[in-house]
């Protein structure tokens, strides 16, 4: 197989081929990201400052965690529009439960903290379970189900708080989870790393990961091969709900109060964007979480760079939109070139 017929052979072709092959394996994303990083650091001295790097990584962590869950759902052929609302619900539930526990039991903070986190995670898992059961049992499209739960979950979050921030969490929670650092990096980054590594392992090495690919790739084939569809579909939504709730808890610790305004549509759209830019196919069956995490980082860096480059905040969405489309179009283009070679 070669393109000798099309291209005159000669020196340079081989290296071109090598670059092309490299791009095929790592994708275009890192290349684009390098361009953005180098460009921005030349124009802004603060961009590569320690604090800024930490900031970027922290923000990217939140997005990456949610996008991992979203990616698993999309790979299985679904869609989770409710993640933004789950972030908000988990934040509110965590704060309320923790505050209530703290004032009820007094005693050591740790107990209240554990109760709060468990409640927050539980709320996310519950929404995920509901999504999953609707999709798997009733065979309704994930898009519509999660559109419904998105509205309902946001409603519950607001109903619980009337939109008023929830205070009264033990100081220890904010200090330990939100503000603590290990080797100079905030906890969120480690959690995100752990999540991405764990999910990468799940995708490659576990039955669950394998079945998620199979279900998204060809559900009929999975059925006749004896894969239990329901259980694994439910699993992806529960996972996505749980990860979104994790982010809700981390954000709550960071801002120091439970807020029904955390998350929202923006978070949901961004998580889907990260997944898709990270090469997850909306038709299911294809995608790797580690690339999705890189895409999350890319999106975060992009936003940060626009701010640091003093781009008018009203013009920023225009740049963001153009670059996003460009990134995916280039990727698509190179992939097509590739399949010719």
């Amino acid at each position, binding site marked *: *197989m*070669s*393109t000798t*017929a*099309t291209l005159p052979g000669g020196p340079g072709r081989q290296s071109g081929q090598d670059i092309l092959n490299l791009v095929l394996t790592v994708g275009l994303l890192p290349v684009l990201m390098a361009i953005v990083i180098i460009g921005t650091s030349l124009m802004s001295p603060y961009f590569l400052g320690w604090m800024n790097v930490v900031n970027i990584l922290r923000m990217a962590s939140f997005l990456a965690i949610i996008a991992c869950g979203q990616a698993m759902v999309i790979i299985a052929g679904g869609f989770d529009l409710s993640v933004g609302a789950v972030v908000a619900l988990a934040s509110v539930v965590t704060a309320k439960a923790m505050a209530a526990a703290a004032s009820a039991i007094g005693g050591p903070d740790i107990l209240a903290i554990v109760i709060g986190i468990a409640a927050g995670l539980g709320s996310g898992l519950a929404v995920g379970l509901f999504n999953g059961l609707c999709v798997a049992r009733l065979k309704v499209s994930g898009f519509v189900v999660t559109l419904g739960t998105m509205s309902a979950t946001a409603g519950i979050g607001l109903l619980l708080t009337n939109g008023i921030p929830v205070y009264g969490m033990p100081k220890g929670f904010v200090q330990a989870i939100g503000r603590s650092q290990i080797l100079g990096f905030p906890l969120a980054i480690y959690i995100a790393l752990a999540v991405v590594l764990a999910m990468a392992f799940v995708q490659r*090495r*576990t*039955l*669950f990961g*394998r079945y998620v*690919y*199979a279900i*998204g*790739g*060809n559900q*009929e*084939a*999975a*059925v*006749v*091969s*004896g*894969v*239990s569809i329901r259980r694994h579909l439910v699993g992806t939504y529960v996972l996505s709900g749980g990860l979104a709730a994790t982010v809700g808890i981390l954000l709550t610790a960071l801002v120091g109060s439970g807020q029904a305004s955390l998350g929202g549509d923006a978070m949901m759209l961004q998580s889907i964007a990260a997944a898709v830019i990270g090469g997850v*196919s909306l038709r*299911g*069956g*294809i995608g790797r979480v580690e690339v999705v995490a890189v895409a999350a980082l890319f999106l975060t860096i992009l936003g940060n760079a626009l701010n640091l480059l003093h781009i008018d905040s009203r013009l920023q969405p225009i740049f963001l939109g153009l670059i996003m489309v460009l990134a995916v179009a280039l990727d698509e283009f190179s992939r097509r070139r590739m*399949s*010719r070679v």
Partner: protein
Amino acid sequence: MEPAATSTTPRNETAEPLLVLSGVTKRFPGVLALDDVDLDVKAGELHVLFGENGAGKSTLINVISGTFPPTSGSFRFGGEEMAELTPHKARAIGISPVFQEFSLVPSLTVEENLFLGRERSAAGILDAGGMRRRARELIAELGFDLDPKARVDKLDRAHQQMAEIAKALLGKVRLLILDEPTASLTERETGRLFELIARLKSQGVGIIYVSHRMREIRALADRVTVLRDGRHIKTLDAATVTDSELVELMTGRKIDVLFPAITHRPGEVAIAVEKLATADGQVADVDFFARAGEITGVAGLVGCGKSELVRAIYGIEPIASGSVTLRGETVTALDPRSSLRRGVAYFPANRGVEGLALSRPIRENVSMAALDLGRYQRRGIIRRTAERSLIGPIMETLKLRPPNIERAVGNLSGGNRQKVMLGRAMARDLDIFLFDEPSVGIDVGAKVEVYEFIKRLVEAGAAVVVVSSELPEVLALSNRLYVMHHGRIAALLEGEAMTEQNVLSSFFEEEAREKAA
């Protein structure tokens, strides 16, 4: 075969047959796909299911392999009553189906597909190494030219078929079910498969085999069961039954000759291809021509680029270099739309993927490629009455069954789907026809009708190109036959020289020449 050997020692003759179906009925909304079918398969026997498209063969197989339960009736396997069978359970007890619609996940690799649903794992964690070794072993054992690490969607249909067969043979097998396994295999792989079948039979594996190819049935079958309209018509001993008897039972009418006698009257050169190379490298340096009034055949092994050749002529395969001349006019920038305007039609091998919009009515599928004509529309507005009165008769001449052009194509059997494709060619005035595997997956009756259709086209002066993996078919139909090998023309056979022997030897000569070079 290691697994088979451990599972079955030939059972003693008096024991109950391996599989016994009694009174199995399956009803789909609006369709009675199986109607009170009785059937038995003995260990070590190859039992052919024979019947027209839509007779219920695949449905029967699906019931046996646990895909869905029968509406009523029961079946026993290995002496046990099978109730609430799931695909998983079926495989676990040794029922291994090879489906017509492949059960492969396109985005996974061959190896991952082989083990799908039966992964080796501990505590949910996969034993990747073990599975890889076993996959390699199995593929080597089967003698397939298959890369276990290749992604299934990157394989052609033939290799997908091999993966599907390998998947069925992975576990312990007591009953192997093959639904048209050779529909997209060429001679060589088919030969391998037959050797394998013989081996399995000798180990006492029962085999259910579905095929529309008489030659295979002759070569393999111990017994043949004929199904018609979901009913069991008769079970016969293969040794004593004749082809025409079988065909008559199947169709309810007599069919004497499969291939019609075609009078070729070669006229002007309709397609001339010079030094053609496709962008994907599948076709390189091909010179080729086809004349009006004759059938030009293209034969070749799997992946030799014969499909790509006609696809490039039609304009759906990017061309890297070379030229295509249609009726003396050299055309640049080929695309389906302009090809149709120049009178060129293409019939894809994979009708489901490239041919038909399954949920749309037959009428729309037939007129689909002709909507730019004034007959069907005026200023972009479709003339519905005209459309109906034009399409109706076309499908009538093609003997569409049932003759209702408002039904969705997805409801049709394979043969009738192919008729819809043929109808598309009659919906506009065309005179160059490119057929890619025109008879794949359709029953004998429908095949005869397709051949008759091709005959009519040629005798009316059209230029027809037939690309096929089924050697008897291209040999019988063609006036001239190109043999392709690795993207190049290996031989051009005409007249007396067009024999199976010559085709095969030109493959091997080419192979030898390449080895030497």
